[in-house]
């Protein structure tokens, strides 16, 4: 029994503590180093922040370089697919064009109404906000985290918590700032909880991301009268974002109140950050 235990001990020591052939570090040392890294992430001091920022900026640039072949391959396959689907796309567009022609008079009226309403909201936004534009540098949609990296950071005055817009629509917030890059956490992410206002009922709620699925509205009053098509805006109650930034519209599916976002999060190239 003792010999057996000894054998296991020797095996563990040999695997973890002893340096193998051509190995510069033992596994044990690196495991401890990883734990120290995780611990350091919770400490906010200047030298650690500087190290993190420097490391992240370098890795993002490296990632862009490494992604070039796969990006080019992706573009090539898209190009081939476009050619293959040319006829079906043409038929679909023709059909859509006919439908649009029929709806054009209806749209004119709605557009006018929409412009008037937007003007009202925009007055609030424009008065208190200063926008800066950025390009999406890395869009590695992690299966666990819905976010992307933009090409500006503290060099342009970006700070954590700032709102990110696609055009005029809210899409997320800044969660990590480096010198030349920042990470935007999208509203679809599981970690995203935004305080919102629903119009026309004026209910307050929390918009929660669910990863791949549509975000849902939570903490609504019990007897609410929310309907399909109601508009969702930031409420500004948390004191971080300006109120009245459009987010999406309500869709009720199987008793779940989801929000169809105005912006397609997978098709974003340029964004605006509210300073």
């Amino acid at each position, binding site marked *: 029994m003792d010999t057996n235990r000894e054998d296991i001990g020797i*095996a*563990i020591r*040999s*695997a*973890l503590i002893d340096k*193998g*052939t*051509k*190995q*510069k*570090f*033992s*596994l044990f040392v*690196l*495991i401890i*180093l*990883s*734990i*120290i*890294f*995780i611990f*350091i*992430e*919770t400490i906010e001091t200047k030298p650690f922040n500087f190290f*993190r920022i420097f*490391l*992240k900026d370098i*890795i*993002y640039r*490296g*990632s862009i370089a*490494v*992604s070039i072949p*796969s990006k080019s391959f992706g573009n090539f396959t898209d190009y081939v697919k476009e050619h293959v689907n040319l006829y079906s796309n043409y038929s679909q567009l023709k059909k859509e064009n006919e439908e649009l022609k029929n709806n054009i008079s209806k749209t004119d009226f709605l557009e006018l109404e929409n412009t008037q309403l937007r003007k009202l909201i925009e007055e609030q936004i424009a008065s208190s906000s200063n926008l800066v534009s950025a390009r999406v540098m*890395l869009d*590695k*949609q*992690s*299966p*666990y*985290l819905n*976010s992307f990296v933009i090409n500006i950071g503290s060099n342009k005055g970006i700070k954590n918590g700032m709102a990110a817009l696609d055009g005029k629509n809210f899409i997320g917030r800044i*969660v*990590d700032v480096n010198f030349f890059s920042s*990470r935007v*956490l999208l509203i679809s992410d*599981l*970690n995203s909880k935004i305080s919102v206002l629903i119009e026309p009922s004026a209910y307050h709620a929390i918009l929660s991301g669910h*990863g*791949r699925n549509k975000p849902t509205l939570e903490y609504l009053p019990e007897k609410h009268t929310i309907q399909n098509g109601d508009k969702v805006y930031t409420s500004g109650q948390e004191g971080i974002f300006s109120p009245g930034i459009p987010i999406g519209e309500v869709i009720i599916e199987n008793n779940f109140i989801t929000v169809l976002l105005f912006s397609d999060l997978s098709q974003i190239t340029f964004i605006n950050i509210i300073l």
Partner: protein
Amino acid sequence: MAYIYKQIKYKFFELLPVLLLFFISLSGNSIVDLKFFSINVHYILVYYWVLRKPQILGYGYIFLSGIISDVIFGFPLGINALSLLIIASVAAYIRVVTVRVTLVNDWISFIPALLFANFIYFFSLYFSNYSIDYLYLFKNSIFTFVFYPILWGIFSMMLNLSKS
């Protein structure tokens, strides 16, 4: 000339796992996400090479690759590095205690490696206040295990080419 060619070929196949390791971390493809399932190629790559030829895939490289993955995926630094090193630890232990190399042995011993690594992943994310889709993580682990033999075959071919 033939000797030089053989040396270049040997060096290339010796470097290939390291290049692959850094390529998948830097390009953010450590988790191959397909329509109905996803596979963690990172785990399989580390497990296979630490088990079969640890001198090719240095532990320092594995650590560095984990740190890169953390930055690319936006996780706190050290989480992926730690889970990859746990995979490498289990592989190193299995290498010490086993004599015969078979696919079945490797495949079965991959289960505790996955369990430990995912437990550490979950634990560190929980304490870093990060929410992730745990059902996705579970499905990912199942399919990583299921697809292990395919990648085992590909990596074995690479290993044989470096030997021949």
